[in-house]
Each structure stands twice: as structure tokens, then as C-alpha cells.
């Protein structure tokens, strides 16, 4: 058998990638984890995690990532800071083109996660970082005693809106439906929080200001009425898009670009697996990401054993 650079290349260093790294390193696979920025991913922007087992008092996103990173380092996982430009999966030997070289591997686990979705409305690019944000833990303190808006109705939107109320005078929570999608305990907390004012059945149509964000325009999609709200900050949590642009058409993805896998986390290409937020699934949690990753490594090992 031809000697390749690696048994397994893991792309992405969030909870899925780090878990895959942990299992692969302990399985003594010849493995490398490629991370574009720094280990962590979206979890780094998460204020407080209460639904990941083992931390009864909750844990901050950055702390959880620090622990996960510490754990993989204990097993000497090779982590490289580099960017995957493209994949060539046309042959059983997979080629991974990085920014400075091309590496070969028997298997790949894609754990590149997702990024907050943009709304695609006027003002969004101009005021990004000038009042418009997707990271409450980064930016909430800039809005102490100020008025802010939050857009969305899922777990992230509701949890982070509650966090915003620690700083802001008031939080308008704007949601396109007339009820929240977030888990019940978060809904209860939000409804009990008198700093949160809900604006139902509504969407953002523009973001305005001079140097910094000053106003947003909100449209009620049932009545068609629009109104302007004066706010200093606006946080967008209306969903995510997968970080899978580098894949082109190498593996099958769903309509939104999330990678389609079978129950063994294998994609349309044998030996190529996906785990975590980047895969097509109904629920995206840290708990599901780490489970995906463990399964993906198990499947990758099986694949490798059968070709050797």
C-alpha cells in the first residue's frame, strides 16, 4: 500500500474537531488537525453553557475550549494553524490542498462548523463592528445602559439576549414569528426578564446611522407596517451557514450547503466524514458535535483497517 502523509486529516478545531482529535490520537492514528484561526470556533463567542453534561454550575465557552484543547494536547494531537483551500477526492488517496502545500490522507473528517448568517439588508456591511454584532460576550459591555436590539428566536438569540440585559438598559427581541423556538427554560427566563421587549412577527429591513449604528427599521410581516427604533447596538442571531465553501462539489451537501452524511457520519465519498455544525442535521449542540466526532473517528478507523 502506498504510504500517505496521514491516516486522518481533521479539518476544524471546534468541539467536533477537537473530539475527533482526542479519539484519533488515542487510537494512535497518524493524524493532524488543521485549524484556520485558533481552536474554538463558535463556542468561543458563547457566554455560558448549561447544557453540556459534567458542568453542573455551567461553564463559559472559552473555558470549555481551553479544557478540550488541554485534553487533546495530553495525547499529543498534532494541531496546525493553516487553511484548507480545496480538496481533491477523485481517488481513494485524498488530497488536501493547504495554503502552502498539499497533503495526502486515507480519510478526512470535516468539522469546519458554521458561521452566523447575514440578513442581506442595507447597512449590514457598513455597521458591522460599529454597533452591529453577533457576539454578545465580546461586545455587550460597549452597550452599558444603552438601547439594543436582538434578532432571532432560537436558543442563541434568547440566551444571548438575556446576557445582554446585564449591560443594556433595554433589549428589543425581534422575531419573525409569534412564538420563540428556543428551549423552554430559556423562554421562561426571557419572559420573566422585564428588560426584554418582544417585537413579534417582525423582521429587520435596514440598519442606519452615521459613524455608528443609530437606528434600525423593523417591519411587521403580518400587517406590513414599518417602524424605526433608536438603538446603539443590534445583534443578529437568525441562524447559521456552514463553513463548507472550500468543498465545491466534492461531497454531497443539502440546499444550504450542510454536508449530508449517513448514520456513520460518512459523506457521499467513502472515507470522508463530517461532524458537528457543518453536517446536515436537525440539532446543533456541543453535545451532538462531540458525539458525531466520536462516531466519525470510529468509522474512519474501520475504513482505514479495511484498506490496509
Amino acid at each position, binding site marked *: 500500500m502506498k504510504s500517505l502523509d496521514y491516516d486522518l486529516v481533521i479539518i476544524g478545531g471546534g468541539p467536533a474537531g477537537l473530539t475527533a482529535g482526542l479519539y484519533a490520537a488515542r487510537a494512535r492514528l497518524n493524524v493532524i488537525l488543521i485549524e*484556520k*484561526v*485558533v*481552536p*474554538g470556533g463558535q463556542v*468561543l*463567542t*458563547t457566554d455560558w453553557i448549561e447544557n453540556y453534561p459534567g458542568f453542573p454550575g455551567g461553564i*463559559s*465557552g*472559552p473555558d470549555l*475550549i481551553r479544557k478540550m484543547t488541554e485534553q487533546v494536547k495530553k495525547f499529543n494531537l498534532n494541531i496546525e*494553524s493553516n*487553511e484548507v483551500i480545496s480538496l481533491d477526492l477523485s481517488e481513494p488517496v485524498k488530497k488536501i490542498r493547504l*495554503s502552502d502545500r498539499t497533503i495526502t490522507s486515507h480519510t478526512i473528517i470535516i468539522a469546519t462548523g458554521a458561521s452566523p448568517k447575514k440578513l442581506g439588508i442595507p447597512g449590514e456591511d457598513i455597521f*458591522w*463592528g*460599529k*454597533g*452591529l*454584532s453577533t*457576539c454578545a*460576550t*465580546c*461586545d455587550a*459591555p*460597549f452597550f452599558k445602559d444603552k438601547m439594543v436590539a436582538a434578532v432571532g428566536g432560537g436558543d442563541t438569540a434568547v440566551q444571548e439576549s438575556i446576557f445582554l440585559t446585564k449591560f443594556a438598559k433595554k433589549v428589543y427581541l425581534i422575531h419573525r414569528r409569534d412564538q420563540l423556538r428556543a428551549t423552554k427554560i430559556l423562554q421562561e427566563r426571557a419572559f420573566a426578564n422585564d428588560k426584554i421587549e418582544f417585537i413579534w412577527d417582525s423582521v429587520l429591513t435596514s440598519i442606519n446611522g452615521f*459613524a*455608528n*449604528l443609530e437606528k434600525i427599521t423593523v417591519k411587521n410581516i403580518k400587517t406590513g407596517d414599518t417602524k424605526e427604533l433608536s438603538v*446603539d*447596538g443590534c445583534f443578529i442571531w437568525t441562524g447559521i451557514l456552514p463553513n463548507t465553501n472550500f468543498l465545491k462539489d466534492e461531497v454531497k451537501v443539502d440546499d444550504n450547503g450542510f454536508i449530508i452524511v449517513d448514520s456513520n457520519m460518512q459523506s457521499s465519498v467513502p472515507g470522508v466524514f463530517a461532524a458537528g455544525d457543518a453536517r446536515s442535521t436537525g440539532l446543533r449542540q456541543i453535545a451532538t458535535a462531540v458525539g458525531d466526532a466520536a462516531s466519525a473517528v470510529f468509522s474512519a478507523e474501520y475504513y482505514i483497517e479495511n484498506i490496509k
Partner: protein
Amino acid sequence: MAEVISEIDDSIFDAEVLKSDKPVLIDFWAPWCGPCRAISPLVEQLAGEFGDKIKFVKCNVDDNPISPGKYGIRSIPTLMFFKDGNVVDQVIGMVAKSKLEEVINKIL
């Protein structure tokens, strides 16, 4: 080689940033900001690579409200690039090292 980046405060901002002979990259950060802490090793690596051509400094927005306020910082991490006392570019949020190198090469 990574390099330790010196911290500046409001009182020396003008002297250190605006009156600097070399272009300046200033990293606006805060201890409570996870992504800020996460990218700081990247910025230190860049300081090791480009430290002879660019002055690298950090500004804690918690302790120093004036300078971030003056430059409209509402989101961190923000990396702001100064040349001859003027803002020439900025990068907001966590980005890949390659993107930062691209910006640095553009302003050099």
C-alpha cells in the same frame, strides 16, 4: 517567533500610536472577550514576523475608554492599522492569519 506585545493606555495613545514613525497595529481587546484572548497568540506571531516594520501594541478597552471611544470601537477584537497618525485599515472579529498578513502586506 512570537513576541510579547506591550500594552498602552489612553495617556500615551497619541505618542505611541499617532506619532509613531512606523505603522502601528493596535489590538483592542478586553479580558472578558473570549475571541480576543483566542486571537492574541496569532497577533503575537505576527509581531514576531513583522515587528521590525510595524509597531504592535494592545489596548485594553475596559481600562481605557477614551481611545476606543474616539475610534468608534463597538466590537472586539478589532485590529486597527495606523500610518502617519491615520487609520488606514481595520479588521473586526476572529480572522485567519492569512487575512491579517494580507492586510499587513497591503499597508507596508
